[in-house]
């Protein structure tokens, strides 16, 4: 369970508050969606939770299954079960995708006191999971995300998620830059990972991703706060009427 309480965050380099008291609880096994207009702080929330530099937490807490996330290094958060699917997956020339995946999987296993996967076992698992996402052997061999299309990059994020088997998955605008078919493929990958022990926080601008990944709870974020919470119907309301009415109602 992810519990965020009264989270206040400002940019490190300037005196600009981005998150102004976020309260959010994602129960284990549930899928929550966060929608909101540009600049509402959705991506900042995902970065702060995963430990990116450049932000300063001025108040509040974020706890994953009893562990204080904000006290951990990014790699420790990952080992604790947190995963962020990036809005813009990073290209890393010179590092093979397979090397990257194996290093990550084994680093997390090691951090949790588990045995590392043998090369053979790893290969078997990665091939099966890659095939389900239509990621071919050639893509696995190439340097991480280098020369990948937008859709390939997002599928590669989901492959990493499938390999790392996190408890808490944050998807930051995973639908951006995807055509309908690519979005379906990504959504299927996500749905295959839904389970009782795994929670999701899906950040998106649009309802259409939520047609494929049905959320249990939908939150609306505006000006650094969760301003409204409801069921899947809330996303439909946004789709039909935009944010203006909702924001006028709550602010």
């Amino acid at each position: 369970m992810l519990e965020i309480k009264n989270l206040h965050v400002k940019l490190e380099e300037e005196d600009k508050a981005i998150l102004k008291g976020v309260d959010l609880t994602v129960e284990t096994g549930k899928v929550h969606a966060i929608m909101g207009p540009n600049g509402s702080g959705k991506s900042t929330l995902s970065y702060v939770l995963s430990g990116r530099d450049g932000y300063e937490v001025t108040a509040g807490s974020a706890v994953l299954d009893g562990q204080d996330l904000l006290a951990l290094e990014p790699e420790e958060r990952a080992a604790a079960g947190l995963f962020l699917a990036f809005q813009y997956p990073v290209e890393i020339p010179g590092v093979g995708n397979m090397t990257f995946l194996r290093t990550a999987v084994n680093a997390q296993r090691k951090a949790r006191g588990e045995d590392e996967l043998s090369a053979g076992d790893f290969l078997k698992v990665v091939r099966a999971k890659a095939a389900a996402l239509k990621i071919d052997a050639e893509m696995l061999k190439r340097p991480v995300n280098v020369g990948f299309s937008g859709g390939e990059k997002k599928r590669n994020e989901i492959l990493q998620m499938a390999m790392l088997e996190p408890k808490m998955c944050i998807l930051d605008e995973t639908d951006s830059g995807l055509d309908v078919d690519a979005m379906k493929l990504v959504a299927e990958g996500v749905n295959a990972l839904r389970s009782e022990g795994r929670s999701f926080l899906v950040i998106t601008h649009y309802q259409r991703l939520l047609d494929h990944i049905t959320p249990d709870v939908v939150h609306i974020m505006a000006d650094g706060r969760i301003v409204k919470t409801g069921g899947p119907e809330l996303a439909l309301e946004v789709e039909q009427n935009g944010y203006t009415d909702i924001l006028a109602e709550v602010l």
Partner: protein
Amino acid sequence: MAVARVRSAASEARLAGLVLPQGGAWLTAARGAALDRLTAMGLPGRRDEYWRYTDPTTLVAADPVPAALYDRGDEAPAFDAIDRLTLVFTDGVFDAAASDDLSLTGVEIVRLADAGARDIHWARELYGVLEARGQSPVARPLAALNSATATDGVLIRVTGKAAKPVSLVYRHAATSSDAVLHHCIKLEPGADFTLLESGPGAARFNTVTEVEIADGAAFHHIRTQGRDHERRVATHLFARLDANCRFKTFTLTANGVLTRNEAVVELLGDDSIAHIAGAAMGDGGFHHDDTVFITHDAERCESRQVFKKVLRHGAQGVFQGKILVKQGAQKTDGYQISQSLLLDDDCQFLAKPELEIYADDVKCSHGSTSGAIDDTALFYLRSRGVPEKTAQALLVQAFLVEAIEEIEDAAIAEDIRDRLQGWLARRMG
């Protein structure tokens, strides 16, 4: 390029004090000629344009600065797992007891110290000859000094495909050793030969290697310059290529107070290729200089220079690379990249890329960059659970990949990668 040279009293005194080694009619003559060249040009000083970024004082002084012996612990020697013919030089002197027999199918190997007394015509036509050609348009006094004073080294002639690589292993035993080695390698038409070098093994080390490559021959050279922290090294690799040749050289340098590696390559026959690559890692008191001069004097030749340096804690890197395309060298394809990864704010990388082109149908490109580790990539790796130090090491290796890819032999490339990982684990782990 005319390079102004500045004569100093110290240089004059040092040259006047040189005593040439004796032994062998043709060698004595070659040494005398080299001394004449050296006397005419003088020793390099800090005010020479070609030594602007690297201080040659300790390389030209009468005596070497002592260097503590380095204990490499349980680290395996370079190329340990490679099937090779090993020749050992301790403090610059051939160590027959530690070496394999000088016998290899398709390869003739003679120790330089034994060669003077014999009339080996091919060696005679090579010793000091490529070095002398390489003195223009830029003077290389340390190479002439080497030709004049070297007493040991190997002369290798390859007539076919060598059964295995020849591996020159340099061991350091005395803290004040001053080694001067001179190697000559002649590849007959169609020959195929790999030279490995590991070391260096002396407080001060000056090597010249002259390589003549005849039509259709292939020469591969992979060198590791070890981690002896206090050593000082100047190397020169002179190569002359006929038609349809392949020439590939790669150097891995880790540490050392001072390293200057010069490569001087002439492409004289059509359709040949020359690739010169280097990966250097310096931490602390480290100065590493790659100086390259490639002359295209034939059609449809390809040259590639790929140099990467990883610097930390005040380490300095230098790259001086030139491509000269002569009139008539049409369809030349020249590429040059020099890059440094600066791991902190204390280190420095100085690059001087030069192109001089007199043919009108050529493709030449060059680039030079300096930068820090990409924070975004670092965060991406960490967000996947990779610890910061491991992530940094992975990104350093990724940075060096393009240079290491120049090694064709998979087993040798693996050996180099292992060495690199060992260094990163010790230094960054």
